[in-house]
C-alpha cells in the first residue's frame, strides 16, 4: 500500500489551472487519476465513483436528488471542483436541462486502475544487481544532509564556500523570490521572503521550492504537465527501493538530477546499471500541507530568562538562530544563545515577524519541553511581540482634513459618505472637522460639489 495519503491541495490547484489540452494528457496517467481522486472531498469522490461506469450524460437534477437539503453548499463545492478539474463537462441545451458527462480519458483510466490495481511503470530492481542498498536511516540522513546543504547554500551565498553544483534551474527559483542581487559584483543578499522561508517548516519549504521549480519549467522549455505527472508518479514509489534509471525518458532523467541535488532521490551507480532511490522527501510530496511534520526531533529549549539552548550540531540550525538571537557559546553538541532586544530588532529589520520566530521556536521545541504547555514560556513570547510593536508605535496614513462645513447636515452627510467607503479616519462634530483617507479625495470633492447644489 503506497504511503500516499492526500495530495497537497496546492498540487491540485496547480493541476486545475492547466489548460484543457494538457489536462487530457495528464489524465492518461492512471496514477494521476488516483491521486486526484484521493485529494477530493468525500462528496466529490462519491460522485466520481458513482459515475465511473455510466457512459451517458446524467442530468443535474439526478445529482441534486442524491444530496439531503442541508448538504446543498457541499454539493455545489464538489460540483464546482469537478468542473474545474474538467472531470465533469457540462452540456447545456436549450430545451433540455443541464447534463453532466464525465471526461472520457479520466473515466477510462480510472476504470483500468480499479480493475487492474496500480502498477508502476517500473519495477524495483532485483537484489543481485543492487547489492548494498542503503538502509532507511541512511537514506533519511542523506536526504536531511542534502536539504541542509541546500539551505546553507541559500544562507551563505555571500561566502560561496560550497561549490555551486546546484543546477541553474534551482538557482533561478532562488533568485526569483528569495535572493536578490543588487549588482553582479556584490554577493546576493537574502530578501525578506528569504528570511521567512528559512524559518518555515521543512514540508512548507519543500513545497515552495517545488512550486517555484514547476513555475519555472515553462521558461526552460519543459512541459508543465510532464513535470507534474512525473512528480506525482514519483510520490507513489516505495521509499528505499531502487529503480533503474533507463526506464526514465530523457526529460525525466534531467528532472531526476535536479531532484537529487535537493535530496529527494539518491542516485547510485552499479557496474553496468545506474539507479535512483526515492527518499522520504519524495514520498512526502504527496502528504497534505496541513499535516505538520512532527516527525522531526525538536532541539530548542527556551528558558524564562530569555536563554536558548539548542541541542544540535548542525550548522544550519546555528545559522538560523543567529538570525534572531545572540550566540553566546558554541559547543560540539550545544549552542547557547540569548534573545535580546538588539538581535530581535535586527531580525525585524530583515523582515522577519515575531509570529514566525515564535512559531519556529514552538515547532522545534526539544522533546523535554514540548509536552509542557506552553512549550515556549509566555514571558518570552509576550516580550517578543511587545518589542515588535515597539517598532511600530506610530501609524501614518496619507489623508485630507476637511474644514468649514456650512451646516451640520452637510457635515453629517459627508461623514456618512466617508464611512460607507471605509475611509473615515477621524471626526469632530463640535468643530465640524473631518479627516478622510487620501484615496477618497476625488470622490469627496465631487460629492461635496453635488451637495452644494
Amino acid at each position: 500500500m503506497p504511503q500516499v495519503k492526500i495530495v497537497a491541495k496546492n498540487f491540485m490547484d496547480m493541476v486545475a489551472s492547466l489548460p484543457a489540452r494538457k489536462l487530457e494528457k495528464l489524465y492518461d496517467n492512471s496514477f494521476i487519476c488516483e491521486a486526484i481522486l484521493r485529494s477530493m472531498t468525500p462528496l466529490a469522490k462519491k460522485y466520481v465513483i458513482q459515475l465511473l461506469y455510466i457512459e451517458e450524460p446524467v442530468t443535474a437534477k439526478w445529482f441534486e436528488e442524491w444530496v439531503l437539503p442541508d448538504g446543498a453548499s457541499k454539493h455545489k463545492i464538489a460540483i464546482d471542483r469537478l468542473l474545474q478539474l474538467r472531470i465533469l463537462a457540462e452540456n447545456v441545451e436549450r430545451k433540455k436541462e443541464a447534463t453532466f458527462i464525465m471526461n472520457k480519458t479520466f473515466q477510462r483510466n480510472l476504470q483500468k486502475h480499479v480493475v487492474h490495481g496500480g502498477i508502476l511503470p517500473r519495477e524495483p530492481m532485483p537484489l543481485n544487481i543492487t547489492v548494498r542498498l542503503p538502509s532507511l536511516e541512511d537514506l533519511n540522513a542523506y536526504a536531511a544532509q542534502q536539504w541542509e546543504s541546500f539551505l546553507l547554500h541559500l544562507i551563505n551565498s555571500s561566502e560561496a564556500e560550497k561549490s555551486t553544483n546546484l543546477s541553474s534551474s534551482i538557482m533561478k527559483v532562488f533568485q526569483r523570490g528569495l535572493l536578490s542581487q543588487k549588482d553582479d559584483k556584490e554577493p546576493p543578499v537574502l530578501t525578506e521572503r528569504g528570511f521567512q522561508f528559512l524559518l518555515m517548516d521543512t514540508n512548507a519549504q519543500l513545497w515552495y521550492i517545488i512550486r517555484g521549480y514547476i513555475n519555472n519549467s515553462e521558461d526552460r522549455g519543459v512541459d508543465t504537465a510532464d513535470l507534474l505527472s512525473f512528480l506525482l508518479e514519483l510520490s507513489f514509489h516505495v521509499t528505499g527501493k531502487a529503480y533503474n534509471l533507463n526506464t526514465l525518458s530523457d526529460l525525466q532523467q534531467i528532472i531526476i538530477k535536479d531532484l537529487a541535488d535537493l535530496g529527494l532521490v539518491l542516485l547510485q551507480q552499479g557496474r553496468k546499471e545506474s539507479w535512483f532511490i526515492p527518499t522520504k522527501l519524495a514520498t512526502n510530496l504527496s502528504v497534505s500541507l496541513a499535516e505538520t511534520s512532527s516527525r522531526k526531533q525538536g532541539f530548542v529549549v527556551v528558558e524564562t530568562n530569555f536563554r536558548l539552548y539548542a541541542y544540535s550540531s548542525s550548522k544550519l540550525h546555528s545559522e538560523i538562530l543567529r538570525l534572531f538571537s545572540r550566540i553566546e557559546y558554541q559547543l560540539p553538541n550545544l549552542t547557547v544563545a540569548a534573545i535580546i532586544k538588539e538581535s530581535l530588532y535586527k531580525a525585524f529589520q530583515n523582515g522577519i515577524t515575531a509570529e514566525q520566530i515564535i512559531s519556529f521556536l514552538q515547532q522545534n521545541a526539544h522533546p523535554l519541553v514540548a509536552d509542557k504547555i506552553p512549550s515556549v514560556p509566555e514571558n518570552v513570547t509576550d516580550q517578543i511581540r511587545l518589542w515588535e510593536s515597539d517598532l511600530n508605535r506610530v501609524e501614518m496614513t496619507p489623508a485630507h482634513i476637511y474644514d468649514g462645513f456650512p451646516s451640520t447636515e452637510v457635515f453629517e452627510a459627508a461623514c456618512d459618505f466617508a464611512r460607507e467607503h471605509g475611509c473615515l479616519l477621524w471626526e469632530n462634530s463640535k468643530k465640524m472637522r473631518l479627516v478622510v483617507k487620501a484615496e477618497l479625495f476625488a470622490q469627496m470633492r465631487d460629492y461635496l460639489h453635488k451637495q452644494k447644489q
Partner: protein
Amino acid sequence: MVSAIKGMYISCDIPMAQYIIHMNNSLPQSQRFIIHVLDNTHLFVRSDVGGMIKSAIQTFREQNTYEKP
C-alpha cells in the same frame, strides 16, 4: 465653503504624540510640520515629514537602550 488640506494622519499613543509635538516646537517656525493637533492621540501633519518622524523616533529609542559590549 468646505476647504480641504492635504497631509498625513498620525495615530499613536500619548507619549509618542507628546514627543512629536515637542519635536515640532523645537524646530524654527518655517520648518514646523504639525498642521493640527486633533486630540491627544492623533495629529495631522505635513505629508513629507513621515520618514523624518520615523528616524527621529528611532534615534530617541536608541538613546534609551543599553547594549552590553
